């Protein structure tokens, strides 16, 4: 309990000098061990063959999987756009509600995150299946009969599960709160007086939105986009559960080579490395748009 004496002399601003950087040192070592070295290992694996020799072969093989890269990026992009289109208005509207309502709704939006996401996704299976609840409901209200009578078709269910649409739905469902919350937290912080000033200067409500609120909320949008895009592009659960294993994504591809049915950690590492680079590129492009760095990342 006996800390060193601090010389609180002259410019003795709280915690200056070598001693006060010390609290970070354990973590710096921790990071070196468990953040930096693992990533170096990924790089090493990506550039070696199973006999440990240097090779570029793993990357030569990657072009075979261009379609998986393309699919992952496309589905994640669509999911991100849908999340933005749905999430932004919700966040905006929410910021106009009364204080206590806001608090309750934010709580309600966060609450599902406490249910294991595997289960939430699994639950969508029960809803989307051909014999699932939505199809049962549609059959019960006679929709299929009606369509069949009119068009002379023989539709017995609506194909929803095991489609790319289902995978996108799974992404939107799981990551929508990650879009709403950062945008909301930025919008509520916008100084009311700025808006009033704009109104005083004669801006109508759509002008206020496009010229004041939207630009100011951009940092929230940016962190929302990254918080939706990155997990979407790398998921392997959602595609497994809702895509039927016929529409594999990058995550599935990586998982397959480490713990799945085609063991090849070197190729897996190469794919991981490329995915990491894609993420970094996306992040830096995003950061060009908004300056929100250190503090906007969460909530």
């Amino acid at each position, binding site marked *: 309990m006996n800390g060193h004496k601090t010389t609180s002399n002259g410019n003795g601003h709280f915690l200056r000098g070598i001693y006060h950087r010390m609290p970070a040192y354990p973590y710096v070592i921790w990071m070196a061990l468990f953040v930096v070295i693992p990533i170096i290992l990924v790089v090493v694996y990506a550039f070696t063959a199973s006999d440990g020799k240097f090779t570029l072969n793993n990357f030569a093989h990657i072009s*075979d*999987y261009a*379609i*998986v890269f393309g699919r992952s990026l496309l589905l994640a992009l669509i999911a991100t756009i849908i999340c933005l289109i749905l999430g932004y208005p919700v966040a905006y509207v929410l910021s106009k509600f009364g204080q206590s309502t806001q608090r309750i709704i934010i709580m309600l939006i966060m609450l599902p995150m406490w249910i294991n996401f595997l289960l939430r996704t699994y639950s969508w299976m029960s809803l989307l*299946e*051909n*014999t*699932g609840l939505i199809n049962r409901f549609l059959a019960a209200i006679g929709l299929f009969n009606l369509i069949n009578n009119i068009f002379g078709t023989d539709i017995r269910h609506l*194909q929803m599960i*095991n489609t790319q649409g289902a995978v996108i739905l799974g992404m939107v469902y799981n990551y929508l709160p990650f879009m709403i919350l950062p945008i909301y937290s930025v919008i509520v912080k916008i100084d009311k007086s700025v808006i009033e000033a704009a109104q005083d200067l004669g801006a109508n409500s759509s002008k206020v939105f496009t010229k004041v609120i939207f630009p100011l909320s951009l940092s929230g949008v940016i962190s929302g986009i990254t918080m939706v895009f990155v997990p979407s592009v790398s998921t392997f659960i959602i595609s497994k559960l809702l895509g*039927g*294993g*016929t529409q*594999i994504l990058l995550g*599935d*591809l990586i998982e*397959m*080579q*480490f*713990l*799945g*049915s*085609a*063991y*090849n*950690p070197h190729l897996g590492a190469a794919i991981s490395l490329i995915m990491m680079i894609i993420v970094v590129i996306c992040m830096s492009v995003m950061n060009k748009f908004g300056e929100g760095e250190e503090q906007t990342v969460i909530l």
Partner: protein
Amino acid sequence: MKRVIIVLAVVALLLSILPACGGGREVVNVYNWGEYIDEEVLEQFEKDTGIKVNYKTFETNEQLYSVLKQGGVSYDVIIPSDYMVSRLINEGMLEKINMDNIHNLTYIDESLIGMEYDPTGEYSVPYMTGTVGIIYNSRLITDEITSWGALFDEKYAGQILMFDNPRDAMGIALKYLGYSLNTTDKDQLMEAYDLLVEQKTFLQAYVMDQIFDKLESGEAAIGPYYAGDYIIMVKNNPDLKLVMPEEGTNRFVDAMCIPKGAKNKENAEAFINYMCGVEASLKNAIFVGYTSPNIEVEKLIELESYEREVVYPSDEILDNCEFFVNLPQDILDLYDELWIKLKK
């Protein structure tokens, strides 16, 4: 300050509890297929021997292989299928079992010991055997199914399920084309691969044990699976039918092995021995629906006549079956490559 102390105390407490539940006691780490044991047997084993069982499941032989190959795990008992046993032996990944500790080996069908996958019979003890068949819903598919061809028939688009592992999936395609399951002819393999690629365009999903729910609920109409599982499924949906395709099928043995470097080898042997016992074998056979290699079980087990046909198939069917054997490395690599290509 007080709070910090309280928090730290809680942490210390938790830390002190944790090792207590991990170490000290005798344990055996078992890695088995899903839905492949009657959990009562595990409890009984723990009661009888005082050895705690850490039980985890895998989905496919290939996944088991990946996990072992990657390392950092310490399973004491694993239950791969024949061809994987052979691969693991070849790659020096298995420990010899001390058969003196497996007294109950006397109950095991002798014809299953010393088979091609483990010629000396030193590395494995059979756990279950069975065959692969087509299971379909006779209410959704009114045609009579006799051939693997039904799985590649676009008529059933969107209703077909397929094995989510390379060996079984390729095997079916090979059989349908009239080739051996164990072919090393790359042209034949490519032909089978092309068939699977075509099938993928109208496939509902690649599945392993998810097939239970999907066939029972009528979500899918047809799929290949291990015949014994049919016995379990039909209890939940009487419309389901099982067919042994005319082209012949795969017969398998899943065997208990001890991976190299197992930390609790004696406990593993105790576990293997226990599983070979009559009582445990019978319970597992009833729960799993596969054929127990324990010869006493055949006499004791109560089966309906249709069930008996599945569990103890006629010689006619068995003669038409082929076991998987391990393949040369270049073919294994080709399998890996084709499988990923197929799935992408």
